[in-house]
C-alpha cells in the first residue's frame, strides 16, 4: 500500500486526464520492466508476464503497447508501423494512443525515432545502437502449430528439443521441394532458444542477426515477453542442402525504383494489371524525395499518393498536436 501515494502524484505526469503516464499504472510497469530485463538476459526465451487488458483489443498490438508503455518517457520519439506503413489505421491508432496518454513526439522517420513499434515488418532503413524496436506478437510460441499444448512446448524449450520443428521443415522439402514457410519463419537465438520472429516476412529475418538496436517482443493475449539484445546471433533454421533464402521479386518498386526492398503487390484493375511498391512507406517516400524514380510516371505516382493519402506527406508538423484533443 505504500506506493499508492506515489501513484497519486504520478497521475499529474502528463497525457490523458484520469490515467497514469503512458496509461499503465506504476506497479504494472515495474512488473513488465522486470520481465523485460529477464528477457534481455535470456535472449529468445519467452518470459511469462501478468499482461493487462489494454483499451485496444487483444490481437491488435496490446503486447507491443504494454512493452512500449513500460519503457517510454518524455524524451522519446515514437514511430509506429503496421505492415511497414506508418499510415495504416492500426498504426495511426496506436500512435494516437501514445500521443494522448504519454504526450510524446511521434515521427515517421526511422532514424529520428528512439522507439519503433512494429507489426509484421522490420524497417528498411538500418536502425542504430540506442534505438529500440518493439514487435507486436500475435503468437509467441514457434512450436504452437506443431504442438498446441503449453506444457509440452515449455518442455521442448527447457531441454532444447527442437527435433519436431526440424522434421516439420524437412517434410516441407520432401513434399514441396522447399520450406513452405514465408512468414513467421523460425529462428534460433544465441544458439539456444527457438524463437518466432512474429509474422514478419522471412525477407526480414536476416536483419535480426547482429542487429545494432535492441529488439523487444510483446504478446498481450498470450502474455509473453521476449527479447534479442543488440549484436546477437539470430539464425533462420535451414539445412545444408536447402539453405535459407529470402523472397525476391522480378520487379522493382514502381514508385521509387528500389531493387532490394519488400514489395506489396498493388492490384490496378480487374484484368490482372498490377504493380509493386515498397511496403515500407517512409523508406519509399524518402527515396522519392531524394530523386529516385520507378516505372510509374510522376503524375501517376502523385495520383497514387493522393489515393493512399500519405506516401509523400512532407512533414508531420502539427500532427501530434491535432491528436491530443
Amino acid at each position, binding site marked *: 500500500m*505504500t*506506493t499508492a501515494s*506515489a501513484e497519486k502524484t504520478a497521475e499529474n505526469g502528463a497525457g490523458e486526464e484520469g490515467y*497514469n503516464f503512458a496509461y499503465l499504472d506504476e506497479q504494472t510497469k515495474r512488473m513488465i520492466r522486470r520481465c523485460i530485463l529477464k528477457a534481455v538476459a535470456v535472449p529468445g526465451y519467452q518470459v511469462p508476464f501478468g499482461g493487462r487488458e489494454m483499451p485496444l483489443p487483444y490481437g491488435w498490438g496490446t503486447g507491443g503497447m504494454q512493452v512500449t508503455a513500460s519503457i517510454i*518517457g518524455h524524451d522519446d520519439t515514437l514511430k509506429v508501423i503496421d505492415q511497414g506503413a506508418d499510415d495504416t489505421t492500426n498504426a495511426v491508432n496506436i500512435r494516437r494512443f501514445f500521443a494522448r496518454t504519454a504526450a510524446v513526439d511521434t515521427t515517421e522517420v526511422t532514424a529520428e525515432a528512439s522507439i519503433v513499434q512494429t507489426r509484421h515488418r522490420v524497417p528498411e532503413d538500418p536502425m542504430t545502437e540506442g534505438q529500440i524496436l518493439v514487435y507486436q506478437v500475435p503468437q509467441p510460441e514457434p512450436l504452437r502449430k506443431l504442438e498446441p499444448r503449453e506444457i509440452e512446448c515449455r518442455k521442448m524449450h527447457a531441454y532444447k528439443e527442437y527435433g519436431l520443428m526440424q522434421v516439420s521443415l524437412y517434410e516441407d522439402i520432401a513434399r514441396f521441394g522447399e520450406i513452405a514457410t514465408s512468414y513467421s519463419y523460425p529462428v534460433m537465438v544465441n544458439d539456444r532458444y527457438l524463437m518466432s520472429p512474429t509474422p514478419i516476412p522471412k525477407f526480414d529475418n536476416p536483419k535480426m542477426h*547482429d542487429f545494432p538496436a535492441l529488439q523487444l517482443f510483446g504478446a498481450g493475449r498470450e502474455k509473453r515477453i521476449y527479447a534479442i539484445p*543488440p549484436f546477437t546471433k539470430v539464425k533462420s533454421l535451414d539445412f545444408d542442402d536447402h539453405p535459407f533464402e529470402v523472397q525476391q521479386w522480378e520487379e522493382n518498386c514502381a514508385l521509387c525504383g528500389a531493387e532490394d526492398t519488400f514489395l506489396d503487390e498493388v492490384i490496378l484493375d480487374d484484368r490482372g494489371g498490377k504493380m509493386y511498391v515498397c511496403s515500407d512507406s517512409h523508406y519509399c517516400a524518402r527515396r522519392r524525395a531524394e530523386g529516385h524514380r520507378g516505372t510509374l510516371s510522376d503524375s501517376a505516382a502523385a495520383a497514387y499518393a493522393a489515393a493512399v493519402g500519405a506516401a509523400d506527406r512532407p512533414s508531420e508538423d502539427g500532427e501530434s498536436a491535432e491528436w491530443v484533443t
Partner: protein
Amino acid sequence: MAAMATLAGSAPGGIDTTDLKPGLADPVHDSQRVFRALLEAMARPGRPLQLEEGLDPPFPLDPATAAAVLTLCDHDTPLWIDWIADTPPVRAYFSFHCGCPLVERSQQAAFGLVSDAENMPRLGLFAQGLDKYPDRSATLVLQVPSLSEGLAVQLSGPGIDGRETLRAAGLPDWFWNDWRLNAAQFPLGVDIIMTSGRALVGLPRSIAAEG
C-alpha cells in the same frame, strides 16, 4: 472507498519513518529514466552508464544502488540485503518506498542487495531459476567501490559487438570463477547489476568473461 484511499496513504505499521530519506523525487518519470538506463546496461553488458538522478540514500547505499532497487522492487519482489546494509534506516527506506518484503535467506529473494562486495555470498546461494522457467532467478544489485578501476575482464556474448572490457574493483577472488560457473549453466543463473556512485553496469547470465 474514499475512506480506504485515506488509509492507503498512511504508512503501514512497523516502519519507523523518523529520519526517512526521500526516494525518487518524481516516481513516474525518474523510475522510467532509471529503468531505461538499467535496460541499456543489460542490453549492452559491461558498458558503464551514469545516472542523472541525485538520490541521497541511507548509508552505505550509493545513489545508483538505491535507484536500481527503488525502480525494480515492490510488494511482489522479496529483497535480501547483506549484513552491512541491513540497518534499520535501510530497511525502513525500502519498506516505505518499495513496500517490498525483506527476506533473511538469499535463496528466497527475487533481488539481492550487496553493499560489501568483498564478503558477498557465493552466486550459487541465490535462486538460479528453473529449467522451464529460467526467469525465476535472482537479480543481484552489486555495489562495488569502483567501476573504472580494478582487474580488467574481457566480456563477450549477446549485446556485445565483439568484446567489451569491464573493470570492477573490490570483488572477491572467487567472483569471476563463480561467474564462469554461472554462465556455464545458461539459461539458468543470476543476473547482476553492478553499481558504484551514480554508475551502473549490466552483467546478464548470457555473458562470458575471460580474465
